[in-house]
C-alpha cells in the first residue's frame, strides 16, 4: 500500500501516521509538503491531525485551500483512498470532500482522552478488519470535533450507512458522546466509499506498547482492501 502523508504547517500527527504505516505495517510511505503540486504514485493519502495554519479562520479552512489539496481532490476523484484524521477530517469537510462541519466542542473544552467507538459499518475499505458492532478504545484530542450537518444531510448519511464510527458509552465506563456531535458521529465516509474522516486517532492506538492497538484495524483494512480489491 503506497501511502502519502500530507504535511501542513502545524500538522503534528504526521509522523505518527507515517510510523504506523511504514514501521508497524511495513508499507512504502512518503511525506509530502503542502506546497507540492504533484503527488508521488500513491494508493492512500493521509491528512494527519494537528493544527494546520494554527486553526486560523476555521479549523482546516486554510489547509483545504492549499496547493496540494487540488491533487488530493484529483486523487479522490480517481477513486483513490483518502483518510483524514482529526484535523484531517476538518480539512476534508472544509474542502467539500466530505459533508458537514466540525463545530467547537459543546462544552468548549479541548478534550484529550480515550473514548469508546462502535464500528457501525464494517463493509468499508477503512473498517473491513473489524467486526460489525465491535467496540474500539481509541484516543481523541480536539477542541472542534462536534460534528454538524443539516437534517437532510444527516438522514442521508444514516440511511446510506455512511456513519462508520460512532461514540458509545458502555464497556469500561459510560462517557458516551464527548463533544456534542449529532447522532454521536465520530467518523463518516463519502458516497463512493473512498474518503473517510474521523476525529479519533487510530494512529495513536496501533501498538500494544502504547496502551491500545484497536486503531490498527483502520490501516490493516486499507492494506487488505488494496490487496484483495
Amino acid at each position, binding site marked *: 500500500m503506497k501511502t502519502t502523508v500530507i504535511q501542513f504547517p502545524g500538522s503534528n500527527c504526521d509522523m505518527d501516521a507515517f510510523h504506523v504505516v511504514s514501521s508497524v505495517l511495513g508499507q512504502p510511505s512518503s511525506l509530502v509538503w503542502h506546497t507540492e503540486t504533484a503527488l508521488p504514485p500513491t494508493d492512500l493519502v493521509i491528512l494527519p491531525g494537528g493544527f494546520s495554519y494554527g486553526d486560523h479562520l*476555521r479549523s482546516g*479552512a486554510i489547509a483545504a*485551500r492549499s496547493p496540494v489539496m487540488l491533487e488530493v481532490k484529483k486523487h479522490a476523484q480517481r477513486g483513490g483512498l483518502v483518510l483524514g484524521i482529526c484535523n484531517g477530517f476538518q480539512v476534508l*469537510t472544509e474542502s467539500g470532500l466530505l459533508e*458537514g*462541519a466540525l*463545530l*467547537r466542542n459543546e462544552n*468548549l473544552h479541548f478534550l484529550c482522552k480515550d473514548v469508546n467507538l462502535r464500528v457501525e459499518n464494517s463493509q468499508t475499505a477503512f473498517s473491513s478488519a473489524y467486526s460489525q458492532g465491535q467496540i474500539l478504545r481509541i484516543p481523541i484530542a480536539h477542541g472542534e470535533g462536534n460534528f*454538524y450537518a443539516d437534517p437532510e444531510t444527516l438522514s442521508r448519511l444514516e440511511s446510506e450507512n455512511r456513519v462508520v464510527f460512532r461514540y458509545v458509552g458502555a464497556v469500561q465506563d459510560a462517557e458516551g458522546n464527548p463533544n456534542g456531535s449529532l447522532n454521536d458521529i465520530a467518523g463518516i465516509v463519502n458516497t463512493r466509499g473512498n474518503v473517510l474522516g474521523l476525529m479519533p486517532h487510530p494512529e495513536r492506538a496501533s501498538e500494544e506498547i502504547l496502551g491500545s492497538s484497536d486503531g490498527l484495524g483502520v490501516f490493516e483494512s486499507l492494506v487488505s482492501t488494496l490487496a484483495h480489491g
Partner: protein
Amino acid sequence: MNYKAKIYVTLKKSILDPQGRTVERSLHNAGFSSVQNVRVGKFIELELSGESFEVKTQLEAMTRDILSNPIMESVRFELEEAVMSSEF
C-alpha cells in the same frame, strides 16, 4: 478606487453557540439581567482596490467561499469607499 470592507461572521441561528451561552451566563452573573441571545462571531476587515462592480463581485465570492463556511455560519458585509488616512 479604494474600498474598505467589514465582514461579520456568526454561527447560524439554528446552531447552538456554546461560547455565546457561556458569555451570557457570565453577564447574568455580573448583574446584567436584561441580556439575552448572546452570539459570538468574527469580524474581518480588509481593503480592496479596483472598479466598484469587480470589487463587489470579488468580495461576495471570497466571503461565501473562504471567509465563511455556509454549512455552519452566516455572513454579511459592508463595503465603503476608503477615506484616506482615516485611522492611525
